[in-house]
């Protein structure tokens, strides 16, 4: 475990040294210093949210395009964070998934931290054809299961992707919903069903 971290750190250094940093290092340092002085906690949003974790720092320094073998290593580390439901089943109830996909609630300073967090899915994706108010930051997921089937491999990929999108694309725009505790394994199952169940409107 320790060896792996040292290796990752060493590789990260090499990767950064080898790639001309896209971010302007001086302006970036000043930006971080400015952010540090200029915020105050509000609601559930504490100041610790301002600090980059290792992955965020790598993405920020490289304009979200890190190069080299380190990328695969770090993606594998992200995949290792995925936790599965106790019963081992990865497909739940697509109807529950649909209502979860609709909700954009959670984590802002104006959200009640006691209430459940939404999946935020329609904010960025087209999913069911019945919902026309969908975002386009992420790809359309219309016919997602019809195009891919729902084999155990596809179920696992879909579950993993929702749990931690960074396991497949290190600097993906998509949050790490499972890893940060926004969505629980049972909820992710329901989202998997929304995308893969043949009865889901997504695949009609």
């Amino acid at each position, binding site marked *: 475990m320790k060896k792996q971290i040292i290796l990752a750190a060493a590789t990260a250094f090499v990767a950064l040294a080898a790639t001309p940093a896209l971010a*302007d290092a001086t302006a970036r340092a000043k*930006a971080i210093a400015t952010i540090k*002085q200029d*915020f105050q906690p*509000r609601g559930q*949003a504490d100041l610790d949210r301002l600090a980059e974790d290792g992955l965020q720092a790598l993405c*920020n320094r490289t304009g979200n395009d890190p190069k080299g073998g380190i990328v695969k290593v770090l993606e594998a580390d992200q995949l290792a964070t995925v936790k599965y439901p106790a019963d081992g089943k990865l497909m739940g109830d697509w109807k529950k998934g649909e209502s979860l996909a609709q909700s954009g609630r959670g984590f802002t300073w104006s959200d009640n931290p006691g209430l459940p967090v939404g999946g935020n899915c329609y904010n960025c994706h087209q999913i069911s054809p019945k919902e026309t*108010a969908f975002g386009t*930051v992420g790809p359309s997921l219309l016919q997602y299961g019809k195009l891919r089937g729902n084999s155990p491999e596809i179920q696992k990929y879909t579950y993993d992707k929702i749990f931690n999108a960074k396991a497949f694309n290190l600097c993906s725009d998509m949050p790490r919903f499972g890893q940060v505790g926004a969505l629980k394994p049972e909820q992710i199952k329901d989202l998997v069903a929304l995308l893969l169940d043949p009865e889901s409107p997504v695949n009609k």
Partner: protein
Amino acid sequence: MRKLSIIGAACTAAALAATGMAFAQSAGVDHAKADAEFAKFRAEMEDSNPAELFEMKGEELWKAKRGPKNVSLAESCDLGIGIGKLDGAYVQMPRYFADADKVMDAERRIVWCMTEKQGFSFDEIAKRPFASGNFTPDITSLVTFIAGHSRNMKFAIPMKDPKVKEAWEIGKEIAAYRAGPYDFSCNTCHGNDGKRIRMQNLPNLAKPEGAIKGVLGWPGYRMTGGVMLTSQWRMNDCFRQQRFPAPKYASDTVTYLLTYMTGTSNGQIYKGPGIKR
């Protein structure tokens, strides 16, 4: 003429709220059509924008002797083009102010004048800096008044000033900074062309044609809630949705972001205080 248009504004404010609901309901059907309808509606409203009510209030506040020092802003406040001068001031901010040794956006500059020249307490102003419900802070009316004096003028942020250029560069980096529980930066939503969150179009702030969309219409009368809001408020609400903590009022972070957006908009025409959905 002026009075007539104000009465018109007051009447339309109520109509606006009702029409806004109709738009919200119909927009799910066809985004492009709803946007086009709103744009047409906004064009029709230009002569009787409720923002004019706040411009009038702002004018009174600008001219009145106020604060512990009992001086007016008109006789003491330099918005970058000379004490008391208004025409074109808004489209040339953010800019560097030697007396404060800071780059400041319009709202921050007015706050500075209110505290330094009139003697108001910054902490008091910062306690409730944005409109909500029936409350509109004086600072919002002042910003609206000053912005009205740059209507139909081109943005001309002094980008050759090294302090302004540096603020722009830092603002660009702040926009790219990903952190927080969802790994979001400003650019997650506003760094690409042609994207949407739900039905809301997202301007790409990296390009002049996108940046101007982030700047136009502010300060704006927002039909949702029926309140007058400023660019400072808009930045604040972006950070909320980014799942960040709150930026302090009139801080460097907000000024630098506004410098990045407004500087990138240079050369394009500011249409004055606007109407927002």
